[in-house]
């Protein structure tokens, strides 16, 4: 399908071996449409985060493939995979997204540095990104001077540093109050309207209800039931 940005084929991930073997993913197939807003939901420990790490090439599967923009990512070497992450994917995690010793601006600049943006262009771009998430006045604040919601917005700004087409979010609002969650969600929805593909792991029913597509991960397998309401 030409409009799918990510294609997953029979993805299997096993940890350990023998009797102690854990099957985190048991043959997952799915496609993510370009420009979509997809939520991955499911009970804890059933493979949501594992799937998400595989989608971003942070972890290697036992078997199966993930294709991003026509490129099978696990056939890439470590270096090319790192480049793909820098160019195509922005990550936001639940906790500790930011480098604690750096200011908001410096955190974003570091991502720009890793993508090869020259130093003199970094400052301007970092400022623009902070404007997108509405935090330009916090440019020189260290993470511990920011609220949880503000930290996550800086993390989103950083994930956007290289203008990646895909944003992977691992419960970015998991430890935020509802007000902060609303802040973050409105930023993400705006980005989605601008064409970013957003994949969002969550426990929250309200967020899942706002998603265009819903993927339920249970027992390491995917269950496509778009109308599903989660009983967690």
């Amino acid at each position: 399908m030409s409009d799918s940005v990510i294609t997953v084929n029979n993805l299997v991930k096993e940890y350990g071996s023998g009797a102690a073997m854990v099957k985190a993913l048991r043959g997952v197939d799915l496609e993510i449409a370009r420009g979509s807003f997809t939520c991955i939901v499911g009970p804890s420990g059933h493979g949501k985060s594992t799937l998400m790490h595989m989608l971003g090439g942070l972890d290697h599967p036992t078997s199966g493939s993930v294709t991003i923009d026509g490129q099978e990512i696990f056939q890439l070497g470590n270096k090319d995979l790192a480049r793909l992450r820098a160019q195509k994917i922005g990550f936001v995690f639940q906790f500790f997204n930011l480098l604690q010793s750096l200011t908001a601006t410096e955190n974003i600049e570091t991502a720009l540095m890793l993508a090869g943006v020259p130093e003199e262009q970094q400052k301007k771009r970092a400022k623009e990104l902070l404007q997108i998430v509405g935090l330009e006045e916090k440019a020189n604040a260290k993470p511990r001077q920011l609220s949880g919601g503000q930290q996550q917005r800086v993390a989103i700004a950083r994930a956007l540093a290289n203008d990646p087409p895909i944003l992977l979010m691992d419960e970015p609002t998991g430890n935020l109050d509802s007000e902060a969650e609303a802040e973050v969600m409105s930023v993400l929805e705006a980005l989605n309207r601008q064409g970013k593909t957003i994949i969002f792991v969550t426990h929250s029913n309200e967020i899942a209800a706002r998603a265009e597509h819903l993927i339920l991960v249970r027992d390491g397998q995917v269950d496509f039931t778009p109308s599903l309401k989660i009983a967690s």
Partner: protein
Amino acid sequence: MTPSKLVFKNLVRRRGRFIFTLLGIMIGMGSFVTFMALGGSLKSQIERESAALGANLVVTPKGSCAYEQVSILTGEQLPTTITGDEVASISSIEGMTAIPYLAERSAIDNRPVSVMGVLPEETIKFKNWKLDQGGYFPADDSEGAVLGSILAEQFGLLPGAEIRIRGSQIKVLGVLEETGGKDDLTVFLSLPQAQRLYDQEGLVSYVAVRVDRLDEVELYANKIKEKVSLGVVSDKQMRSSVLSIVGTVNITLQLIAAVAILAAAFGIVNTMMTATYERKREIGILQAMGATRTGVFRLFLLESGVYGLIGGIGGAALGGVAAVFATPYISQNAATSFVKGAQVSIDPLMLLGAILFSTLVAMIAGLYPAIKASKLSPVEAISYE
């Protein structure tokens, strides 16, 4: 943001740990530089004195050891067991000049000084001395003293002044021009007067010999040995045996410094390992942002290298200062320790080498932590709670 700025921010985030680790490498490198500088100063001083002696052969009491050879070069007191008859029979050999010396000690204003009994006329020719002020000994058995330039300046002595040696008032006849060696720090008397004052009638400490034909040094050494039952060493032998003692001392000191550097290197390993654990999650985030394993490796290696670089610069400065203060007390003998003119030779190339060495050691120390950091899997790093 650049990798070096990122490294710098990481370095200073734990200020105490940064400073203590840095102190470790600074002390190690500082002691290394001090010992290197001291060794270099000792060596160049010995070479200078050996040149100032101006002799190809030195006749010493039989069985004299390296310690006495050091004393000849530094102007320490020596046993006086060579007799006038022996000096006469050495002097009788054709084709060479023999100059006897009586090396003694005295004190001026309660400070020790070297006193040297010499044959005035022969010695001034042999040593090529020039007079700076006053006159010289009018005859070979004249009474009076001629002073080295630095000694005269140090004690404010001018021709006409009097100094007291072994209870006798002795008039200063003149002051020599600076020679750059220990002669600048010596009181010269005529040999007969020195022998009388120190009750060493007819005796001398050593005899310096210059041969007319350099290629026949060995031959003359044998001739002297045939005539008298005394020790004969060439200036080269003397220099090399003295230098080998100095060399042994230097190597020992440098080994001690090497142990200090090794300990400091493990300090860096420890600091960097701690940093790796502390920043486990950050390493994962960097990788998620697109940092390669090589990139993470480089960041950590650079960080430990900076410890070596700053520590090396600090250590070189510390060591240089320590060497300047310590040299007068270590590289010169008791008689000259308070006198100006103590020269410390710090080679800028040696300092540069020390800084590079320190950086290299630090980077080697940082290898293991950097490999550890780069091997972290992003998922493991992120999932770490």
